[in-house]
């Protein structure tokens, strides 16, 4: 029994050692930190010195960047590191990074011009070494130079919604024009009450259906403009102002036209001559359509009419 127990212990020991080998190998190999060192002009910085100092052990691992600005720091144990990047004619850059031992961590560094040898305070200005100007030299603030992804996302959404607004707006022209054409066909009586066209129920239904389609498309189109994200601090100017001003005509017109149309339809169905405010259905519809067309032209202005000559 004893030898068996001894064998078991040996086997268990061997198994334990073998099971630990991969973990030990990973620990020995460590994590590889890669990245690139670029100038603020987007050019790779070659021969930059990169030093990663472990916050836990205090040990430093160093390397230099290649011609393409790429660097590789192998065998880093998991933990917190301070990475210092320095290069001639550039200001030093310090970054902190936490390595978990998982994945392929990268740290890309952008160096700003500066650093290097300092000119003596009493040295003549002309004797100072001539340096390539940097963005800091131009006096741009950090805010002016830094991107704003939130604003970009807002602009992207705004453009996306306005594209839909534009497409739907153009599509709306079709049922709107068709509605204007079928309008007179749906009219039952002339100005003096005489019948000029005998409207069929089909004519009336077609006109009403086109009107409903126009209204549905119109208000969907309006939705994409009204609820497109606004960009703060932008003062509106140019053709967009006329485009928006005309909406104050075709907007109420698009509400009023179907209401007046329904009233006219009701009067006609009752065998009455269209009268009262309902008799303005056609006039309001024409004004609305003209304002709508003008708003499309306004936002497209100036139009190069003889485009085929280009």
């Amino acid at each position, binding site marked *: 029994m004893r030898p068996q127990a001894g064998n078991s212990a040996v086997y268990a020991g061997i198994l334990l050692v073998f099971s630990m080998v991969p973990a030990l190998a990973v620990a020995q190999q460590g994590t590889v930190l890669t990245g690139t060192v670029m100038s603020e002009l987007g050019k790779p910085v070659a021969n930059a010195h990169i030093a990663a100092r472990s916050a836990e052990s205090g040990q430093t691992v160093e390397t230099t960047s290649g011609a393409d600005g790429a660097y590789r720091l192998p065998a880093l144990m998991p933990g917190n590191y301070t990475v210092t990047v320095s290069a001639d004619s550039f200001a030093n850059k310090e970054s902190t990074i936490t390595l978990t031992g998982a994945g392929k961590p990268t740290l890309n560094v952008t160096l700003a011009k500066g650093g290097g040898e300092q000119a003596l305070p009493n040295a003549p200005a002309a004797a100072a070494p001539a340096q390539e100007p940097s*963005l800091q030299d131009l006096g741009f603030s950090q805010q002016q130079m830094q991107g704003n992804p939130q604003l970009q996302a807002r602009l992207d959404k705004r453009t996306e919604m306005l594209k839909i607004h534009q497409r739907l707006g*153009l599509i709306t022209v079709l049922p709107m024009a068709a509605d204007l054409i079928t309008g007179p066909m749906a009219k039952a009586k002339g100005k003096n009450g005489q019948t000029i066209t005998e409207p069929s129920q089909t004519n009336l239904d077609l006109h009403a259906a086109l009107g409903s389609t126009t209204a549905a498309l119109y208000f969907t189109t309006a939705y994409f403009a009204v609820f497109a994200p606004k960009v703060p601090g932008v003062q509106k100017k*140019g053709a967009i102002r006329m485009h928006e001003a005309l909406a104050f005509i075709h907007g109420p017109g698009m509400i009023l036209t179907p209401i007046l149309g329904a009233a006219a339809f009701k009067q006609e169905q009752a065998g009455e001559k269209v009268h009262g405010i309902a008799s303005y259905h056609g006039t309001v519809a024409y004004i609305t359509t003209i304002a709508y067309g003008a708003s499309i032209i306004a936002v*497209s202005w100036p139009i190069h009419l003889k*485009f085929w000559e280009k």
Partner: protein
Amino acid sequence: MKQFFYCSALLLFALTPIAARADSQWALDQSSLTYHMSHPMHEVDGTSHSARGKGVCHAGQCEFLIAVPVKTFDSGDSNRDLHMIEAVRGAQFPLIVVHARFPEAETQEQWIHANLEVQFAGQIAHYANVPFERTQRGSEVRITGAIPLTCSDFKIERPSFLTVPIKNEIPLRVDMTWNQQ
């Protein structure tokens, strides 16, 4: 021998200011940068007067840096300008940065041929031997020309109107006045 030493020392001292002046520095005083966008039904120009620039000439080579915020280009229509900023990812990459290099000898010529590196819309494009006309007006130097930018150089998705996209070419006209410092 002593005389030779004194003469050499005198010559050296006399030449020192010239050697010191060999580096010239320039600052952008006024500028007008105008992009041109072309569509079968539209011709649009957007102008910015907000460029900043500095230049250094050293050892026979001039290095100039010009930067302009994308949002300062004005086409006369705020809606179109916002669309332009969106299309060129101007909120994410707020500056157009132009890096120009040319021989110092050309600072005295009528034409400067510069190699340009343009950072725009998160991309970098290079343009070789771009001609600019140089006009001297007293201490000021006026530089005019055009940088042949294209949408494809900067991976800009061309905006379209009535489903027709704008032309790929968006040349940037340049009119700058520089002062030597």
